[in-house]
């Protein structure tokens, strides 16, 4: 998430795919034309105040009004409109159904991510991190489980609202591999500003490796793990699912691959053992109002053991 908000150039001016770049090009063109018009107006103002009488008379003449006041704006705005619509037409191209589909649901204050197969069934579950291949269009099915959120990954596209009871489609495409931060862009509650995600765009080989690793059946070590046992006994499993174990809660983020995530707390902190311990013990200080209670009733060693086990879930 930090990448989404900070860094230079700002992500909105640093497009990583065709859907973001058309908007960026249009924005720069509008800025350039605006700067040019401002320069002309300032120059005319200078002439009107300090210029020689002959120039002043010219500036106030009827001809100037016809040319600079009517013809110039009509021509420029018409050209701009036609060019702008042509440039951004691709944003609205019909979705042909062959794109890869990912359903992203906004929830207070995180993103549920379901990768769909060709039949529209859920193939993989994840949260707060979306992996996409470079060079292939991807359609996000955006929805919400509670209030209105908005999905915004500035490197890849403009914003699109996530409305409960509706599915909004957003097509994106990444042209270069990388990690792109995203945020919720519609005020949704107390920790709205702490609701982010990371989109990871993989090159072709990397993408295949990722798919294979995610599709491989989970083999959990047979040796009893103290952290795993605590996870099941302490109530974590009631809200969180970990594939290949008895933990099958669906209220909170799927933790089957939480150890491989780049961030925890929905894009707000780097994922290391320490932040995981802090999140489990006192997530309410970190993200006020989130639905996970503080697990401060667990002895510190137990929290550390659970965090250590979660870190192994790659």
């Amino acid at each position: 998430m930090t990448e989404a908000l900070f860094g230079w150039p700002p992500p909105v001016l640093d497009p990583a795919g065709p859907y973001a770049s058309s908007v960026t090009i249009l924005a720069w063109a509008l800025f350039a034309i605006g700067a040019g018009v401002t320069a002309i107006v300032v120059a005319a103002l200078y002439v009107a105040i300090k210029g020689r009488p002959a120039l002043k008379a010219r500036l106030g003449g009827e001809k100037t009004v016809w040319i600079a006041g009517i013809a110039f704006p009509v021509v420029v705005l018409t050209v701009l409109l036609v060019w702008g619509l042509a440039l951004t037409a691709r944003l609205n191209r019909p979705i042909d159904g062959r794109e890869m589909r990912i359903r992203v649901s906004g929830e207070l204050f995180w993103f549920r991510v379901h990768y769909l197969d060709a039949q529209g069934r859920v193939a993989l579950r994840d949260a707060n991190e979306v992996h996409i291949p470079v060079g292939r269009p991807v359609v996000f099915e955006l929805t919400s489980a509670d209030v209105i959120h908005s999905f915004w990954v500035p490197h890849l596209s403009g914003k699109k609202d996530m409305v409960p009871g509706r599915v909004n489609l957003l097509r994106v495409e990444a042209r270069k591999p990388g990690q792109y931060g995203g945020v919720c862009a519609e005020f949704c509650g107390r920790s709205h500003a702490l609701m982010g995600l990371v989109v990871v765009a993989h090159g072709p080989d990397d993408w295949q490796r990722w798919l294979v690793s995610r599709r491989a059946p989970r083999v959990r070590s047979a040796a009893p793990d103290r952290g795993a046992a605590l996870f099941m006994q302490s109530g974590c499993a009631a809200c969180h699912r970990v594939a290949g174990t008895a933990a099958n809660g669906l209220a909170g983020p799927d933790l089957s691959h939480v150890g491989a995530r780049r961030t925890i707390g929905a894009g707000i902190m780097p994922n290391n053992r320490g932040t995981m311990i802090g999140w489990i013990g006192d997530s309410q200080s970190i993200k006020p109002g989130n639905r996970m209670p503080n697990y401060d009733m667990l002895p510190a060693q137990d929290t550390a053991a659970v965090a250590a086990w979660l870190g192994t879930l790659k």
Partner: protein
Amino acid sequence: MNGGGIVSDKGNLFHDLSAVSALLLIAACKPPPDARWSADPAAAGRGRVVIERVHCAACHQIPGVDWPQGETGPSLEDFGDRGPIAGTLPNRPDVLAAFVRNAPALKPGSPMPPMPVSEEEARDIAAYLYEAKR
């Protein structure tokens, strides 16, 4: 103690001596301000950046870090005025740097995990913690 002096009265001699030695002991716990080490401000600045990068504040309240302010671990405010690190280790910059990097190695069973920082970054973090004021 009476106003006249420490050894004003034979009966109170022992009492007075023990009071003086107790005072000396208390004073010895904390060296006078100029004898205490002073951190390199540049190192402290670098340490602050590392602290934000690995999010130490997910568990600790750290002066100068507004968010987060986790309470899973102890507050790290006024570190130079504290007793032993984690209750057992001498409160010295080198020990703190080593502890930040690998707490369980210095204190077996510590719930604080090894943190992903280099030795130099750990020294910078220690510098920041001694330097930082609320």
